[in-house]
């Protein structure tokens, strides 16, 4: 199969992962253009619907990323996000959207390097799996 350019949607929290992305930028670190970032105030506000919509519109991967446990700006939004991701990882594979396409990570505000590395690694992974058929069918 010819290599495809995957599309990855990243829901990143304002306080940690978005700040880390900002730091990656100011540190002149680069990461692939396949990532489309959507800044949210907290991973706890990522409604499962957002993730479902992203996949139905053809995203090859979705990553939700926020503050480390204990560091949430809103105290516990990231713990709630973890349960929702757990739920989605049960539902989506029933319809052929494999678990591996949905990621949850904690990337703190000072982790600019970690952010760039994570995004690079995701693109490598996404290139190794089949494109999401919802991009063109279903």
């Amino acid at each position, binding site marked *: 199969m010819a290599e495809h350019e995957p599309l990855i949607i990243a829901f990143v929290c304002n306080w940690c992962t978005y700040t880390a992305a900002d730091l990656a930028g100011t540190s002149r670190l680069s990461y692939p253009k396949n990532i489309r970032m959507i800044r949210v105030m907290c991973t706890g506000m990522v409604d*499962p619907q957002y993730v479902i919509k992203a996949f139905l519109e053809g995203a090859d991967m979705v990553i939700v990323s926020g503050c480390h446990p204990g560091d949430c700006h809103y105290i516990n939004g990231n713990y709630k996000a973890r349960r929702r991701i757990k*739920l989605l990882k049960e539902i989506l594979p*029933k*319809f*052929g959207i494999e678990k591996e396409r949905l990621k949850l990570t904690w990337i703190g505000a000072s982790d600019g390097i970690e952010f760039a590395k994570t995004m690079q690694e995701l693109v490598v992974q996404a290139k190794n799996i089949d494109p999401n058929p919802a991009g063109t069918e*279903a």
Partner: protein
Amino acid sequence: MAKTTFLNVDNNNVLASIQDLLKSVLEQDDIEAILAPQNIKIGNNDKGINIMPVLIYDPTLIEDIDPLAPTFVMNAAKLVSKLTHKPMGKKIAVVLRACEIRALIELVKLKQANMEDIIIIGIDCLGAYTNKDFAKLAVSDAKELTQQFCENVLAGKEPPVEGGPDLSSACRVCEYPIPENADILIGLFGQDIKKQIMLQSLTEKGTALFEKLSYTESEESSKKLADRKKVISEVIARKKDFRDKVFEITHEATNTLEKLSNYFVGCINCYNCRVACPVCYCRECVFNTDVFNHDPYQYIQWAKRKGSVKLPADTNFYHITRLAHISLACVGCGQCSNACPNDIPVMELFKYVANSTQAAFEYEAGKDIDQPLPLSVFKEEEYLDVVGIN
């Protein structure tokens, strides 16, 4: 705490015995009214009957109620929610099916209903036809059908009435025929219902009523209860077998997004399944908002990208979202399928997915009022396997 007795059935008429019992409940000073399914004729002609939930105040009207009739028009948990979302100042009894009680428990957890002012009377559930199949029978009085139906189901006959339709698929796959969370339970399994039925109190509230009705614990109950238990476990094992077969078929029919689109191809976005669902809890559904009032150009974009787009759009999105919202609370009552104008097997998919999601959170909808809804709580150290990119 639990007390058991056996009530005699006269003239082979189990319904009459249950009506008598409910009448004596309604005659209690502290019980103002009783919510139960009642026979109502459709129109003036002989178009048949509907069995609808009715709130009865006058004990003389009890002779038309028929909680055993093989039809299940709506999940009355939603009605109990209407009756209890604020204090009503009076106590009422509610006669509910097992799945209605289980849905009610979920609504209590969602703070949309309250158990304080109600006493729940549950009856062993023998299942029901779909609304459409029941309407086709066009019976002018369900009483005879009810008696025959009950006897045949308890004898293990399928379909329940010779030459008649099968039970609705929700009832055929239901592994919860016993209303375990009722205050008072009327038992049919393991009884010769031409002669007697069981009455059991399951809670303190139930025991108080049991005593007020001047019943005394039966001495022969332990042997009879053991027999009953055996019958019930056989019934449940049979239902589970069939359920697993349905899960397998549903899995095969929906395991890609394309197949899922096909599964829901007749969906017209009427959202009847959402209205009929007892645990679809949002006050305002996102699918009714402007979020889904797409720009006309958007449809062209979809058609262009995919070659064509089936309209109305968003059916997969709608159903997967509903799964994310309510599969943890789904009690498998099957009203979604019952409400579908195009006979899409909605229940099959929801029950199949709910089975996995509830297992993933070690949760069983409707089982335990003290077990919190999975998405309303969290622990610091849990589900570590979903975190990380590898």
